[in-house]
């Protein structure tokens, strides 16, 4: 039992930390966020050069065979600087699905491009009525010739605007909320019949709605077996939740540090704010929340890594009787609670300056708030957790 990074991991962490320190000051981030793209293609290329875009993929495919733990340490550093590049959508979601379900040709062409930094990708699994349920797919894919015709509405595709390819879920059979009958397709967002509506999220990232009207998809662009995609979707979302949880931990730690520094400097009533007991206690609670979150995040990463490797739960400490899906849901709930508490209180403890767009703390708050919603909010994952236990 240990929670230490290996030597390789420590090296990786140092490299990513240094990148964030050098490139993600509050000012640098604000400049980047205000560009048309909203992030940096040059940073993206740097990620490729650093090997980050190849991190989770198999060595045979040219990847680095990194685990969920490795991804988590990268994401934690990203969280500290509120990194804007589409790492989770491209590498973890789209990349993860291609790596799990893709045929040799798909893996070679798509993953190769992703790892080289030449392609960004996204995953469209939400719909207006689905809220957070990935099995709620009303978008239809009907056979047409050797391919399919897609009709429907995929909503809030994270980092859709910059994606060269978007993997979308569509129903090839089954009733609207059945886990059976869901298929994945590799969509060219510029294809005929696709209307891509682009927007920014409150934390400055890209998002798209896709209106699909008789969109023709080649048979080659079916990802995995027809109608059998759900388990891979679930697994990809678990990996994304692990990644975003680690990001939240990094962001929460930074938020707490910035807030404590502010309290030490800001004078009111003739003394530093840090001398007021009620504010001291709040910082203690905020610290405790991030510690609990870190424990969940690291445990989840190990859990997912180990469940990739073998299925023997007996030897796993602390969750002998717990499925990876349960640990995932619990982590999202616990971290959502912490993120909300820390985000809101960091603004409150800053007072007026926390309410401004120019100062950095509001951006941490917004990102933490968005993370609470992303991939399902606390209610959704509490219910998921209960369904796993009580059916």
């Amino acid at each position, binding site marked *: 039992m240990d929670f230490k990074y290996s030597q390789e991991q420590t090296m990786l962490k140092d490299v990513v930390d240094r990148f964030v320190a050098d490139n993600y000051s509050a000012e640098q981030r604000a400049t980047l966020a205000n560009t048309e793209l909203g992030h940096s293609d040059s940073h993206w290329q740097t990620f490729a050069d650093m090997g980050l875009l190849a991190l989770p993929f198999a060595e045979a495919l040219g990847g680095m065979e990194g685990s969920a733990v490795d991804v988590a340490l990268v994401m934690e550093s990203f969280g500290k600087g509120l990194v804007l590049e589409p790492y989770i959508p491209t590498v973890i979601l789209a990349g993860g699905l291609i790596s799990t379900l893709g045929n040799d040709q798909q893996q070679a062409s798509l993953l190769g491009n992703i790892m080289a930094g030449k392609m960004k990708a996204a995953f469209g699994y939400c719909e*207006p009525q689905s*809220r957070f349920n990935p099995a709620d797919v009303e978008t239809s894919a009907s056979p047409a010739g050797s391919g399919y015709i897609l009709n429907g509405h995929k909503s809030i595709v994270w980092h859709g605007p910059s994606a060269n390819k978007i993997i979308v879920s569509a129903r090839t059979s089954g009733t609207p909320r059945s886990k059976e009958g869901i298929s994945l397709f590799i969509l060219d967002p510029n294809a005929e019949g696709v209307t891509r509506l682009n927007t920014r999220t409150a934390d400055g990232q890209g998002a798209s709605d896709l209106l699909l009207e008789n969109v023709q998809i080649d048979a080659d662009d079916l990802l995995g077996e027809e109608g059998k995609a759900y388990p891979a979707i679930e697994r990809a979302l678990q990996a994304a939740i692990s990644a975003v949880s680690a990001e939240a931990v990094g962001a929460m730690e930074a938020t707490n540090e910035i807030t404590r520094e502010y309290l030490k400097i800001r004078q009111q009533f003739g003394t530093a704010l840090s001398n007021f007991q009620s504010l001291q206690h709040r910082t203690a609670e905020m610290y405790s929340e991030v510690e609990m979150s870190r424990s969940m995040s690291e445990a989840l990463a190990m859990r997912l890594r180990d469940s990739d490797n073998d299925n023997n739960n007996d030897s796993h400490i602390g969750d002998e009787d717990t499925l990876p899906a349960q640990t995932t849901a619990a982590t999202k709930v616990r971290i959502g609670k912490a993120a909300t508490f820390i985000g809101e209180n960091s603004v409150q403890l800053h007072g007026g300056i926390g309410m401004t767009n120019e100062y950095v703390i509001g951006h941490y708050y917004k990102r933490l708030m968005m993370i609470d919603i992303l991939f399902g909010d606390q209610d959704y994952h509490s219910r998921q957790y209960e369904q796993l236990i009580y059916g």
Partner: protein
Amino acid sequence: MELKFSQEDLEFKKEVRQFFENKLPADIKDRCERGLVIPKEMQVRWQKILFDQGWMAPNWPVDEGGTGWSLTQKYIFAQEAAAACAPPPMPFGVNMIGPVLIKYGTEAQQQKHLPNILNSDTWWCQGYSEPGSGSDLASLKTKAVKDGNDYVINGQKIWTSYAQYADMMFCLVRTDPDAKKQEGISFLLIDMNTPGIEVKPIIGLDLNHTLNEVFFTDVRVPIENLVGEENSGWTYAKSLLEHERSFIARVANSKQLLVRLKQIASTQRIGDNLLINNPDFRRKLTAVEIDLMALEYSELRFLAKQMDGGQLGPEPSIMKLEGSQIQQRLKKLLVESLGMYALPFDADARADESDYLAMGPEHAHGILDQHFYGRSATLVGGTSEVQKNVISRLLMKR
């Protein structure tokens, strides 16, 4: 004990409701309902309608243009206004400086300013907070030095709401740097067109321009613009805060938020069901609805106490504390009600003034604005922490 409207009250209620139904312009109502910032033109247009009706200044004496309403009638008016999604008048003129001038202003000041406040020809702003003085307002440093017939002002104000629109500012300045901090402060009226004033925008979390920094460099303000006595400004500022306290809990506004939340939850789908039928969401709604009910009865109880001539102690602080928390809970639930559609918040769409998001349900528009701006509810007008200090200080003295 009696918790009933009189027949007159019921008739007044009907009259007020009809007024809002007939006179509130649809475009203004729509923005207000969505929680969007109301542009100056709309704000002034609406205030002039209130002025024409004679209802602009319920808190002023009748012979200055007030309505002569009882507290119950004021309560009814506030309820109906919020229920109709009518924007409240900008407080800086009619609710803040107006009563101060009526009580402490010279006749010249009254004649010059009160009519323009009433008919909304003058837009006022409030120069209180400074970079170094947030909760500790009395530590303010902006200096006014007498020079001939003028005060010469140097310094900086911050968090000045709508200063970019303002014709006039009422402003706290330090006239005696050697006195104890509350005792060297004066209360001045400053024409915002005076040379040496620079207004710089502060963009908020909601990406709107509501707040400003205001810089003063050798700004000359005629001595006749001093309100009351020199160095007694703190007294007037405090009396003004008292006026700010009625309906401080914003109960009527929260009731309207609750109505909106239920409307949205009744249309927002979760798969083959509606959000309003989701037991988790419903329970949060019930919890805040019940807390709001207790808050409303408290507002009525404290109002009744005032109507009987009773003095309030910690009550306004309690109402501010609870009321601001309930507002924030409601605004968070509105965000939560949107599911994934709570994510979009498009700065570009804003810059285009297109105002409407490119995607998502129509009701999503404005909810994040309102939520982000609403985080200030527990900060402005005394932070929650300061309110608790005040309450406990009063309690411990008992």
